[in-house]
């Protein structure tokens, strides 16, 4: 008895729908992605002309200061006096720490000076005042 060769099956994944899938993915990501705006306090930052970019966000910690005098770090409200401990801890884990002060333009300088003092005590000396471009 002769073994009959079976006819070869042609298997192919239909690729006609591939563009549809890509489109669906594009639209899904376009619709669902919200460009992360900043969390933190509700502030209006001052404007400045001569500004520099922060190279990376990896080493940056933000201190939010609102015009009501609230101070927030990592989405938690703190007393000004506790900044030194928080920043000291951050500074020991990341020596390249840059502190970005995001403060409302109507904040009085006594609060900012207190924050400076705390940062100096924590040895976190690289500071960046966040501003808007003019």
């Amino acid at each position, binding site marked *: 008895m002769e073994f009959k060769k079976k006819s070869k099956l042609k298997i192919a994944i239909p690729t006609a729908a591939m*563009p549809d899938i890509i489109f669906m993915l594009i639209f899904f990501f376009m619709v669902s992605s919200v460009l992360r705006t900043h969390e933190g306090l509700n502030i209006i930052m001052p404007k*400045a002309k*001569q500004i*520099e970019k922060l190279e990376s966000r990896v080493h940056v910690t933000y201190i939010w200061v609102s015009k009501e005098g609230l101070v927030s770090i990592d989405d938690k409200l703190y007393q000004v006096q506790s900044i030194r401990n928080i920043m000291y801890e951050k500074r020991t884990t990341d020596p390249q720490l840059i502190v970005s002060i995001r403060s409302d333009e109507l904040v009085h300088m006594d609060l900012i000076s207190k924050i400076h003092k705390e940062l*100096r005590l924590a040895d976190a000396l690289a*500071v*960046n*005042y966040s501003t808007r471009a003019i």
Partner: protein
Amino acid sequence: MSLLKKKGIRYAEMPSGSMADIAFLILIFFMVATTIDMDKGIGIVLPAEGGEIEMSSKNITNILIDPRGGVFMDDKEVDIKEIKGLIETIQIQNPKMVFSVKSHPRTKYKIYIEVLDQLKQAKTRVISIAE
């Protein structure tokens, strides 16, 4: 002859071969056009605690800011917009000059930033923040 002869079903097709290319084009367009907003600001380095340095007073220009936003450079009131020019001339005369910014506790942060901005625009080398 029958007029009601059924016509053969015709297939009309849209060329879909380039559809993927279009999708990729859109994808690349959005990738290029999206700007991830970078943080911008004025960078300074605070003096270390206890690291005060004595300096000759002729190498220091004091800039004082009062609560209503007036700026005094070496006891003369100046307009904020003028600071840049004034500092540039001072720096030509004395390149070692250190500018010390001192603000009243009731001064608005906005004015302080404007003054710092002027200093930065004048390419000041050393800015000291007096408390």
